């Protein structure tokens, strides 16, 4: 390896260290018996025990999981339809507006989206009497609105790359359009749907700012609970929670990787 290659790999290693070191420190310190962050008081699982008895955190986690699940399903459905519209329907009235509306949530500051949605909900409640206050429903609506665009991006590129002759062949053989879509198109773009679903799930379960606007006293998702705890300073309980999240994500990625590898082997 020449000098330049060595310098490049050193830079890359430093970037990886920068990305992973903070997470690793959180994991290590979640097993710290001491309440002080920088003093090592010996190995302990005490914070995990306290976390698992925290009703507020557990309730919020359960709510967040349900919201993320509903959001991922709805966003994948709507986002896929939007991708079909963008890739397959080249000319229709209002296409420019539609393209803008699909891609704007990708870059829109969350704080603006959150404020706008809350003002909409308040206005709707005044005029229509619905939604009745802030609840799980308003959070799901808000999450779907910003995460469907991410699903569209993922599905759109897969749809644009796919070989349309398979659909044409099925159609020539007399399959109806809906059958073609369900039996040919959908299986081909399925990996993109799965990726989009996971992305929407992650975005939802991670969202702080938009949720802060559209959640209410009756429905407080996990990130809002964490955020209000973290604002008061470092707490070992949050370290334990962070470690659980990292472990779950690691398992999910390992499983997803396995499944995809298996698929590639099958395909190849």
């Amino acid at each position, binding site marked *: 390896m020449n000098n330049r290659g060595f310098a490049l790999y050193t830079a890359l290693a430093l*970037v990886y260290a920068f990305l992973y070191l903070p997470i690793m420190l959180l994991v290590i310190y979640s097993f710290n018996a001491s309440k002080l962050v920088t003093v090592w008081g010996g190995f302990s699982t005490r914070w995990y025990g306290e976390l698992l008895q925290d009703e507020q955190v557990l309730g919020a986690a359960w709510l967040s999981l349900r919201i993320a699940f509903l959001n991922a399903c709805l966003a994948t459905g709507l986002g896929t339809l939007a991708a079909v519209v963008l890739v397959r329907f080249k000319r229709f009235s209002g296409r420019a507006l539609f393209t803008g509306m699909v891609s704007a949530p990708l870059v829109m500051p*969350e704080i*603006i989206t959150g404020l706008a949605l809350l*003002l909409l909900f308040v206005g709707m409640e005044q005029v229509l009497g619905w939604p009745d206050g802030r609840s799980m429903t308003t959070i799901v609506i808000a999450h779907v609105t910003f995460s469907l665009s991410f699903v569209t991006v993922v599905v759109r590129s897969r749809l644009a790359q796919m070989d349309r002759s398979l659909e044409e062949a099925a159609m020539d053989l007399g399959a109806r359009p809906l059958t073609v879509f369900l039996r040919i198109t959908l299986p081909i773009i399925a990996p993109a749907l799965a990726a989009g679903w996971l992305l929407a799930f992650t975005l939802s379960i991670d969202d702080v700012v938009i949720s802060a606007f559209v959640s209410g006293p009756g429905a407080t998702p996990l990130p809002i609970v964490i955020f209000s705890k*973290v604002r008061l300073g470092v707490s070992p309980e949050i370290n334990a929670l962070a470690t659980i999240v990292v472990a779950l994500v690691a398992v999910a990625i390992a499983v997803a990787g396995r499944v995809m590898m298996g698929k590639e082997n099958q395909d190849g």
Partner: protein
Amino acid sequence: MKSLLEGRAGRFLVGLAPYAWLAVFFLVPFLIVLKISLSEPQMGIPPYMPLVDWAEGAFKGTLAGYRTLLGDDLYLFAYLGSLRLAAMATLGCLALGYPAAYAIARAPRHRRHALLMLVALPFWTSFLIRVYAWIGILKTEGLLNMALMGLGIISEPLQILETDIAVTIGMVYSYLPFMILPLYATLEKMDLSLLEAAADLGCRPFRAFLSVTLPLSMPGIIAGCMLVFIPAVGEFVIPDLLGGPDTLVIGKVLWAEFFDNRDWPTASAVAVAMLVLLVVPIMAFQHFEAKRAEREG
């Protein structure tokens, strides 16, 4: 053959759901923000007056919210602060992300995918938790100060948390993957024979980088910078957790107007002003993305 999916009615049905959803829950809310930014605040629920008094048939709009923005230096400084921090974060991401993307793009082909996955992986863990991790590292009695003092580099702990430096570090950390991924995409597609040609013509490697690689990777640089800069301008969580009371950014001001002062018209005016500020980079981003999508699709 005219099929259902291709036909007018079929198209209408497929497009209806996402179109209606985005119109109702994305477009209309912005019009409401615009409307409330022109309304008179009042004590009560909701805390603003109707824009049109239907009984009198009179238009009751006011520019008071915007006048507050122009009249108080706080807002101007908050906008400038947001732009400065976003610019610092973008430069930081570029400085770290370019060598990383370059190294991945020039790595052996079979390793690139795994190396890229490693960049994107932290994104799947909680953003909030990753920002939180830096509090323990950067605070006065935090791990970084302990390490630096232990190594004898400094004798007094540095005040890093609650400064702009901490906010910049947090933003670079959170947004780095958004810089590396588009940079990698352009660097990986580059035709390496161009560099060989430059070398054959007597061009030194660094010169070749400046006059061949850098211009060719410009689309990636622009996309990456937009993807970092735009959300960084509107960022709230990072300046709130890692910044101090003096960290003045527009996201915090909007939050305070809305949640602490309950001044919805002013909060809406701040949001509209923020959008105006971001409209040029957002339009530029959409323009580039549309061109890219046309090329690929």
